[in-house]
Structures are given as C-alpha cells and as structure tokens.
C-alpha cells in the first residue's frame, strides 16, 4: 500500500478516531490535525508501533458507511446455493483483472473511471462474507456565470470531481447488498447498481436473484410506531389508500416525532390494513446503551428493495440499521 496516499486518505477519518488509535498504543497524540497526519502518525508507523492495516481500517470505516443508497437482493429459492466460494471469487477477480485486490488494496485518491480497489473477506453479522469496494467519481456543480441573452439564458457551471465509494457485499446467508455513493451529481443510483451487477458477472447473475422487499418493514415500523417511540423518530410518512389517494405527512420540526402531533396520530390511526406505506423518513435514535451510538437517518422511499442512509455513520451503527430493517420485514 502507498503509505503517503494512506496518510492523505486518513483525513477522511474523524480526528477522535486517529487520536484514540495513538492513545491505545500509548503514543503522543497532541497537536493540530495536520501535525497528527504529517508527523505523529507517520512516525508511529515508522517505529512499528502502529500497523498500516490499522490505519486502513480507519479509512474504511470513514468512507464505506453512509451517504449511500442501498439495494438488497436475495437468491431465488430455486438457486439458493449459498455465497460463492473464495475460489470462485478468485476466478472472477482474475477474469476482471483485479486478482491483486484480494490481497492488496489499491489506495487511490481519485479515479477517472470506476475502479475495484479492494476485495475483502469480512466478518459480517451473518458470518464471513465478501466485500467488493469500488472507487468512483461524481461531481459537484457550482454555477459561476449566468448570461441573460435575448431569447436564451446561458448558465455556466464549474464541475468539481469528488471521490465516492460503492460497495457490494455478499453475505453468508445469500443476501447481496449494493451500497451506492450518492453524493454530488452523476449517474442515478439505479444506473450504478445496474453497472455493478454487470461487473459481478459471472460470479453472480442478476436473474438468479430477486429484490428483497422492504414493504413489510415500512408497514411494521408504521404499525409499531408507539412501541418504537424511544428507538425511532419519524419525520415523514406517505400512506397510499386502496382507492389510490396519497396522504403525505411531514413534521417541520426536524427533531420532533411526527406522531407526537395528536392530529397526525389520529389521522394515521385511521389508516386501515388496505392502506400501504409508500415511504418513510426516520431516524434510528442514539441509545445510551447499545446501538446505534449516534443517530442514523434512513430514507425508506424509492425502489421497494432500497433505502438510503443519510449522512455518515459508523460500521457498527450501519450494521445495526441494516439488521433492524431486515428484522422488521420478517
């Protein structure tokens, strides 16, 4: 691994995490963020007290979880053969020209085209699984000029390319999870997901999988809202009646629960079993004991097998959110 690039990528991590790592190794951790990254951390590595792998784990934790739209799939019943073996993953990696990424992550700050940078065997909640990490680029658009001509308004934008991370995880229980970076502008999340399915061929074939519907999750969360009040704060909800009418509820106070409002609660209680929840925006609330350790905002709208994690979260908080979303769908 290119240590210099790693030290630069470490800026993605939170300062507290880097400081904690140095503390854990009983190393000095005072000084500015720049001082830590350009002096203390490199010295810690040179002295052999901090391993490169520990720093890489911090980068992974900082950029692989959150600010993503997630798509979930399960194998079709007739093709439930379990996850691919390591041998098959290796063959696929050779086929795609990325076999080295199984042993050595490629550290890059930016790419022109999407690039698989790491294929890892990770311990996931359901057991050992495979993580395929891709670095992609999207862009932020800034308007720099507006020229009001006779019949035309010509607007000029400046594009700033940004690094985003896409992840595919193949769980031991068969679940295939796509996490698509959504920051900035670029291809839609669905388009990126389609591209990733193509990339996975012939390791996984999309026709062997079906979307894991979160429709029951939406309904169960809604129906159990009173019981979940200390764990989930609802901000938006859309209910569709059997007659095709839509009721959209939203709380203007971003830290208030939608259903604390008596009128909203009375109205929602009128929704019968023939109504469906089209979408929800809610927060898994930070717990004093247990997960999540910080609020995790979830947008449960869009394709039925999909949700978005708004903002960054830690790996543990993400796993908690994913586990809960699946659990409420059962």
């Amino acid at each position, binding site marked *: 691994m290119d240590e210099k690039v790693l030290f630069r990528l470490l800026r993605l991590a939170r300062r507290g995490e880097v400081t904690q790592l140095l503390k854990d190794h009983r190393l000095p951790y005072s000084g500015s963020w720049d001082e830590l990254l350009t002096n203390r951390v490199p010295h810690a590595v040179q002295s052999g007290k901090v391993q490169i792998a520990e720093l890489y784990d911090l980068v992974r934790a900082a950029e692989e979880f959150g600010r993503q739209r997630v798509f979930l799939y399960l194998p079709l019943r007739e093709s439930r053969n379990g996850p691919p073996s390591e041998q098959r993953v290796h063959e696929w990696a050779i086929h795609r020209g990325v076999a080295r990424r199984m042993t050595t992550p490629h550290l890059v700050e930016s790419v022109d085209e999407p690039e698989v940078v790491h294929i890892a065997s990770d311990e996931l909640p359901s057991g050992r699984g495979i993580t395929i990490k891709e670095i992609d680029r999207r862009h932020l658009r*800034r308007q720099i000029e507006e020229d009001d001509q006779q019949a035309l308004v010509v607007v000029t934008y400046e594009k700033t390319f940004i690094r985003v991370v896409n992840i595919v995880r193949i769980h031991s229980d068969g679940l295939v999870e796509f996490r698509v970076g959504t920051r900035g502008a670029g291809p839609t999340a669905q388009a990126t997901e389609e591209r990733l399915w193509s990339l996975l061929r012939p390791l996984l074939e999309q026709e062997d999988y079906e979307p894991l519907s979160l429709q029951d999750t939406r309904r169960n969360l809604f129906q159990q809202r009173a019981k979940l009040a200390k764990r989930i704060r609802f901000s938006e909800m859309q209910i569709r009646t059997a007659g095709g009418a839509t009721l959209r509820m939203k709380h*203007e106070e971003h830290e*208030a629960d939608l259903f604390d409002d008596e009128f909203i609660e009375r109205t929602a209680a009128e929704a019968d079993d023939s109504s469906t929840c089209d979408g929800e925006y809610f927060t898994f609330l930070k717990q004093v004991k247990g997960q999540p350790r910080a609020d995790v905002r979830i947008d449960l709208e869009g394709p039925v097998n999909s949700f978005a994690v*708004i903002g960054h979260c830690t790996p543990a908080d993400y796993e908690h959110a994913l586990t809960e979303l699946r659990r409420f769908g059962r």
Partner: protein
Amino acid sequence: MSMPSQNFDDLVADFPSERESIQRLSNVLSAQKAFMTVEQLVDRARPNSYGAFLQILSELVRQGVLKRRVRVYSPGEHFVGEFESLVKIPTELEDERTGQLFQVGMENLRQVFRPR
C-alpha cells in the same frame, strides 16, 4: 405556554391601531410550540399594517419573548439547516438527502419565529 402579558400591553401602547392583532398574536403564541413563518403569523394575527406587524415581531425578539431563526431548505424542499442570522449562512450548502450542492438564494430561506 403563557406569554408575559406586560410585553404585549407595552406593544399595544406603542401600536394602538394593532390592539386586536396583538391580542390574536398573543393567543397564537400561547398555544404554539412549533416555529411559524411570518406569513403564518400574519395569517393568524390579521394585522392592519404589515410593516407595523414586522416591527412588533422585531420588538418581541428584542425583548426575548420570541426567538427568530432563518431556516434553509434545499431546492428539493428538504430542511438543510437553521441559523441565527442571515450573515451566518454559507453561500453554498449540501442537501444530504440528495447529495446535491446548491447555492443559497432567497428562495431557499424561511424566517421563522417561536416563543422562547
């Protein structure tokens, strides 16, 4: 929440033509927990003069009866942030719901009030 009546009595003395709208404003604020926009307050208080009403709101903010904030909403109408004043709002902000950066214009701002 009950509003300090002295503040409103003083306002009536300063804006006698707005006696009734000040009373209605007092009633609204007593029952209100959430932030309200100027338009919502005008709708409820029905002042005779918009300009006088803005002065009344400013006076209530100055006296500490009302809290004033500026909220920023993205072009997609998502809440992005709340600021104490206009000067503290960055020229560009990101809508985390969509991942899009946007330049903050007047159309993205809502001035809101709430009882302290």
